[in-house]
């Protein structure tokens, strides 16, 4: 595939998707900690 000389990787997109993954981990993680604080699924 011939590459367009001016073509640049979508760096902003990469940054935003990384930010999104961090947000997912943080928010999911906080729900997870809430569950653990209540004794997980044992108590």
């Amino acid at each position, binding site marked *: *595939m011939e590459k367009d000389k001016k073509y640049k990787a*979508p*760096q*902003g*997109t990469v*940054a*935003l*998707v990384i930010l*999104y993954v961090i*947000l*997912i981990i943080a*928010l*999911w993680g906080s*729900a*997870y900690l*809430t*569950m653990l604080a*209540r004794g*997980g*699924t044992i108590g």
Partner: protein
Amino acid sequence: MYASVKKLTGWYLGVGMVALFIGGAMGPLQKLEHVGINVYPALQNVGLNSYYQGLTIHGVLNALVWTTFFIVGFLTFATVNSLERDLTHPKLNWASFYIMVIGLVMAAVPVLLNTATVLFTFYPPLQASPFYYMGLTLVVVGSWVGGWGMFLTYYAWRKENPGVQTPFIALASNITMAMWQIATLGIATEMLWLIIPWSLGWVDGIDPQLARTFFWFTGHPIVYFWLLPAYVSWYGMVPKQVGGKLFSEPLARLVFWLFLLLSIPVGLHHQYLDPSVPAGWKIVHAVLTYSLFIPSLLTAFNIIASMEIGGRARGGTGLLGWIRALPWDNPSFTAQNLAMILFAFGGIGGLTNASYNLNLVIHNTMWIPGHFHLTVGSGVTLTFFGIAYWLVPKLANKPLFSNKVALWQAWTWFAGMLLMSNGLHILGLNFGSPRRTMLGVAPYASSDWQPLLIEAALGGIILGVSGLLFYTNMLGTVFSKKTLTEEIEMPVAEPLDPHPAPAWLDTWRPWVVATVVLILVSYGPLLVNLISNLNLTSPGFNALW
């Protein structure tokens, strides 16, 4: 061009919008009840009997009727304009519309008469008037017929254009409709076999557990039936609207096939707490639900990258400077972009819901309405508003009444939804506040909940105002005396790479076969088991409201 389909689409959208207007009006009332302002007694003389009747109206008209009417109309329109070929059987598509309207009336009358206050999930053994169930069934049947009209048109186009790759928008629209045909077999079975005979009194009892399993067979894919038309616009139209190109069209096609494959065999993630379903099957569905993460993140990347191309083409620079260069003065774009942002948070909540043990924390709490107002209430509905901002002017052949009002509408929806969903999520996660409950009179409601309930109520009121702005604009457009000076074209994004996608991304058979096989594997044994242990034991409960 295609005058007949324009008219048909206009009718679908019009009915959908009327439904949303009535259903939406209930929302702020619910939020007020939660903070102790009970307006329902005052509304008895207009026929609204209770919080729960209002909530049924809200769920049925918003989640079931507004979505289905808008979607069938929009996808029919998109297919025709994408294939550049008129419908082969327009009468069939009109029949779809009439069947859906008859079904809507049949279902709406008992709801308004308070003989079907069973909420939009109509879980047995709550029992509504049989007309409610028959009406909803007809709405589904009508949507099938609309799909058949689309498939026949696609088939004719295929014959006329051998060897040509299906245009992306038409392919994506038809995949969505095909998924819907398979997905609704669950609800159709539930209605025709279990619920309708029971509500007519032909049989005495029902098996609530089996009914719920059939319901969620359709109930999860229904959320993708709502979402995928928004994806059609995000992938196929928004890149054009921002002056960009679709970053990867083959990947976009792959994502739609993956949603065909994976939308259905995940329904048990709504039944993690149902005792009739063995844990093993719940885990299978949990893992399959996580696999939906793949097409979801592919979508995030592809769509943002397409907008980045647009922002940079418009002169944006730097790592994120292109965002400012996007056409924020275009309400169609702004509404859809804000919808995407809200939806991104809905997806995170969805992952939490889908995690088997985390689900125990938030199931049936206020967290869930927090989640689905970000998804169907924002990702989908605000996107449909954004689509309406170009589509309704096109259909009516009149300019949009006010760009400014439309921009205000989009931003107020965004703000209102942030407040409301934030409050609801925290209420559910931290306090376990139940959903579908008159919290205003609940003796166990704690004073700690109050600030969050107030936050959510404030959000709900802002959303109500935003809704009014939307309807002002729609009415102002349709009844405007001006006519368009030049016709509005449906935006169609070009792919960044002009080479056609690989042929396997334009081939139906393997994908449909794989979909059926995956459904048989993930649902077959469980259904055989539930059906062979059928317990038609529960009578109907219908004097509860």
